[in-house]
C-alpha cells in the first residue's frame, strides 16, 4: 500500500522490539490480548468476578501465622534465608506424605520433589516428557494453566470428553487408538480426577481402575493433578489414581488451595527414575524452591490443626457453592445448563446455541461481572458455548448479584444471537498463557 507514494528516505523504520527476530518459535502466541485487558477491569471491586480461581483465605489464622513466621526468622533465620536443596526441605516432604495418605497414597519422602506451586511441577513434567509435536491427552475441558505448559513445550493436546462422572473410559480408549493409528506419539494423560477445574465434576471411583488400565495398555503415563482433593464439601475423599498404580502415575499436589496460594509451594510425587530427573530439572529452573516458604508450611502443618482449617475452608466453599447453584437456578434463562460440584471451586455452564461466551465478555464487563470463557480451557478452539464460574472468592451475596448481572448479559446476547443467527466464534484475541484471572 506504499508503492504509489512519493517517499521521503530520511524517515527511519522504528520497531519497538529490537529482539523481534531472536525469539524462539514458541513465543508466537505471547501477545497483548483484548481478553487480558478486560480482566484488568475485572479486578476492580465494582465488578463481581466469577473468573479467577483465587482461594478464599479469610479463615486463615493470621495472628498465629504472623507469630510463627517471626519465630522461624528468630530461631532458624540463617537456614530459612539460605539456598536449600532442589529436592525440598526433608521434614516438609515427610509431612506431604502424611497428607497424601489421606487419599490412600503410600509414598516415601524421597520420591517427593517440592516445587514452586504445582504449576512448576506440571511445567517440569512436560519438559521431561514432551518433544515438540508429542501428544498429551487431556480432559475436555482442561485446566488452562496446563494447556499453557503444554503449548510452551509445543506439545499437541487431544481432548477427551467428560460426562457428569468425569473422564469417559471408552472415549479415552478411542482417542488413544485414533491418535496412535495416526502415527502420533502420546506421552501422557493429564487428568484432574477430583472436583475438576474447570468442569466441577469428579471421576467416578469405579472408572479409576479402568482408566489406569487403558493407559497401561497403551504405554501412556498418567499425570494426576489433585489440588482440590481435600475440598469435598462433605469431607469425602477419593482414592488417588497414584494409590493403586505407583509406577505409572506422576502425582501433582499443592498447598495453594488448602493453605496459602501466595507461598507457592506444591509438590510432585514420581517414580524413582522420574524423580531423579525432576530434581535435576528443578535445579536448572530455580536452583531450589524457597526455603523460607517451605519452613512456613512445615511449621504450620506441625503446629496447627490444619485438618480443622481445611474443614473451615470446605464450609466456606460449600456455602458459596450453594449460593451460586441457587442463583443459577433462579436467574439463568432457559436453555442454560451447569454442573453441580460437590467440592472444589468451579461450576461449568453451557449457554444456549448461538451465544459465544468469548465474544460476550466485553458486554459482561460493562455490566460489572466477569467469568472465564470456555475457549480458554480447550486447546482446539472448542468451548465457545461454555464458561467457568468460580464461586470460591466472592461472598454469597456478591455471587448472587454477579449471577443476576450475568443473566441479564446472557439475555442481551441471546437477543443478538436471534437477530444475527447462530454465528461461529469471533476470533478475538484471548490469552495464550494462563493469567491469575483464569487460573
Amino acid at each position: 500500500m506504499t508503492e504509489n507514494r512519493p517517499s521521503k528516505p530520511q524517515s527511519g523504520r522504528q520497531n519497538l522490539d529490537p529482539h523481534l527476530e531472536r525469539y524462539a518459535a514458541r513465543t508466537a502466541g505471547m501477545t497483548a490480548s483484548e481478553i487480558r485487558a478486560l480482566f484488568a477491569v475485572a479486578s476492580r471491586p465494582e465488578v463481581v468476578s466469577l473468573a479467577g480461581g483465587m482461594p478464599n483465605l479469610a479463615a486463615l489464622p493470621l495472628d498465629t501465622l504472623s507469630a510463627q513466621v517471626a519465630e522461624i526468622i528468630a530461631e532458624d533465620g540463617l537456614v530459612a534465608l539460605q539456598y536449600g536443596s532442589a529436592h525440598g526441605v526433608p521434614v516438609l516432604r515427610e509431612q506431604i506424605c502424611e497428607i497424601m495418605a489421606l487419599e490412600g497414597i503410600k509414598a516415601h519422602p524421597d520420591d517427593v520433589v517440592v516445587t514452586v506451586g504445582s504449576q512448576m511441577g506440571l511445567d517440569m513434567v512436560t519438559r521431561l516428557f514432551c518433544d515438540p509435536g508429542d501428544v498429551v491427552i487431556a480432559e475436555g475441558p482442561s485446566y488452562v494453566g496446563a494447556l499453557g505448559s503444554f503449548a510452551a513445550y509445543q506439545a499437541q493436546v487431544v481432548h477427551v470428553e467428560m460426562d457428569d462422572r468425569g473422564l469417559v473410559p471408552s472415549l479415552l480408549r478411542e482417542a488413544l487408538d485414533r491418535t496412535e493409528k495416526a502415527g502420533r506419539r502420546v506421552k501422557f494423560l493429564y487428568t484432574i480426577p477430583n472436583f475438576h477445574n474447570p468442569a466441577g465434576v469428579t471421576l467416578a471411583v469405579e472408572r479409576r481402575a479402568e482408566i489406569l488400565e487403558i493407559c497401561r495398555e497403551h504405554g501412556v503415563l498418567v499425570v494426576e493433578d489433585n489440588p482440590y482433593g481435600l475440598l469435598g464439601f462433605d469431607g469425602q475423599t477419593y482414592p488417588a489414581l497414584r494409590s493403586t498404580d505407583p509406577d505409572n502415575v506422576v502425582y501433582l499436589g499443592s498447598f495453594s488451595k488448602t493453605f496459602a496460594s501466595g507461598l507457592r509451594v506444591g509438590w510432585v510425587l514420581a517414580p524413582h527414575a522420574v524423580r531423579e530427573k525432576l530434581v535435576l530439572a528443578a535445579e536448572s529452573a530455580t536452583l531450589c524452591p524457597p526455603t523460607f516458604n517451605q519452613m512456613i508450611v512445615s511449621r504450620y502443618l506441625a503446629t496447627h490443626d490444619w485438618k480443622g482449617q481445611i474443614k473451615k475452608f470446605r464450609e466456606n466453599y460449600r456455602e458459596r457453592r450453594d449460593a451460586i447453584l441457587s442463583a443459577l437456578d433462579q436467574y439463568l434463562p432457559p436453555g442454560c445448563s451447569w454442573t453441580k460440584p460437590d467440592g472444589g471451586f468451579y461450576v461449568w455452564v453451557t449457554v444456549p446455541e448461538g451465544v459465544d461466551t468469548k465474544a460476550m465478555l466485553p458486554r459482561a464487563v460493562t455490566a460489572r461481572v466477569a467469568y472465564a470463557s470456555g475457549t480458554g480451557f480447550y486447546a482446539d478452539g472448542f468451548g465457545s458455548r461454555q464458561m467457568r464460574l468460580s464461586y470460591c472468592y466472592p461472598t454469597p451475596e456478591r455471587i448472587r448479584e454477579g449471577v443476576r448481572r450475568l443473566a441479564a448479559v446472557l439475555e442481551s446476547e441471546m437477543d443478538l444471537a436471534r437477530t444475527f443467527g447462530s454465528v461461529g466464534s469471533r476470533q478475538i484475541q484471548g490469552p495464550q498463557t494462563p493469567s491469575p484471572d483464569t487460573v
Partner: protein
Amino acid sequence: MVDRTVAVLAGGLSHERDVSLRSGRRLSAALKSESFGIEEWDTDAGLLERLRTQRPDAVVVALHGGEGENGSVQTVLEMLDVPFVGTGSQGCRRAWDKPTAKALLQNAGFVTPGWVVLPHSTFRELGAQAVLDAMVERLGLPLILKPDQGGSALGTQVVREAAELPAAMVGCFAYGDTVLAERYVDGVEVAVTVIEGEDGPEALPAVEIVPESGVYDYTARYTAGLTDFFTPARLDDAAAKAVAELAVAAHRVLGLRDISRTDAIVTPDGTVHFLEVNPSPGLTETSTVPMAIEAAGKSLGTVFAELIARAISR
C-alpha cells in the same frame, strides 16, 4: 524540589483500563523528573472527596474510554473548578462519538470514508439480513466495523466477506449498542498529534503505522514489535502538510484543548481521509503520541509540564 502537586487520573472502569494505567504510569514517571509532586489516582467513588480535600494544583486526565473520555469526568472537574489538562466536557463528547466527529469534519470540508451508524434494534426490527445487504451495497467490501464509541480498536474488525458480517456484528455489539460501519480505505495509515501552545494548536510530525498483520488492532497496538512506525511518515510534502492541517482542523472544529491525536489514511492519490480523533490519546510505550513528541525534539515530561502550566493559568 516539588513545585506543584499534580494528580494523574488513570485506570477507571472502561474496557481500556489496562491501557490507561500504562499511560498514567509513563506520564507520572515523566512528570516526576519535571519536579512535580505526582499522585496517581484511579477513578472510583472516592474521587470527588479526594479532589475536594487534597485539591491538587492540576489534574491530568490519562483515562481512556468510557467516563474518562466521553466528557463525564471532565464535567466533574469543571463543576469543582479543578484545573485540568485536556479537552473539556463538550469537546470530549463531540470527539468521543465517532459518527459525530466524522460528520463535523465532513461538514468542515474534509474527506472521511463513507459510513452508516446503526443500533442493534434496527437489525432486530427490520431484519438483519436485509439491513446487512443494504450496508454492503452502500459501503462495499471490505468494510470496517467499529463500536460508535470507544478506543484502542476494541471491537473493531475488518470484514472482507459478507459471510463474516453476522459474527463480526455480534463481536462489535459486545462493546456497545450501536455500530459504525465504514468504507474500507487502503493507504498510508498515520496518527498526528496536536499540541496546543502559546500560538495555538500545532501538529507534530505524523507517525506512519505499518502493522505486520495489516490491521492495527489491539494486539498490533500493544505488542511491541508487531507494528513498524515511521516518524515522520513517509509522505510527500503536500500530503504531510495536508495531514497536519487535518489534525489541527479536527482539534479546532471539535473544540479540543491541549492535546489530541487524529488518525487518518492517505490514499495513493494524496487524498487524506479522516478516521477519528482522540481527546485523551494513549501515552504507553507503544503509543504514537510519545513517538511524535520525541520526533519533534521534545520530551513527554516537558510537553506535559507546559500543558499543566497552561491549565493552572486558565
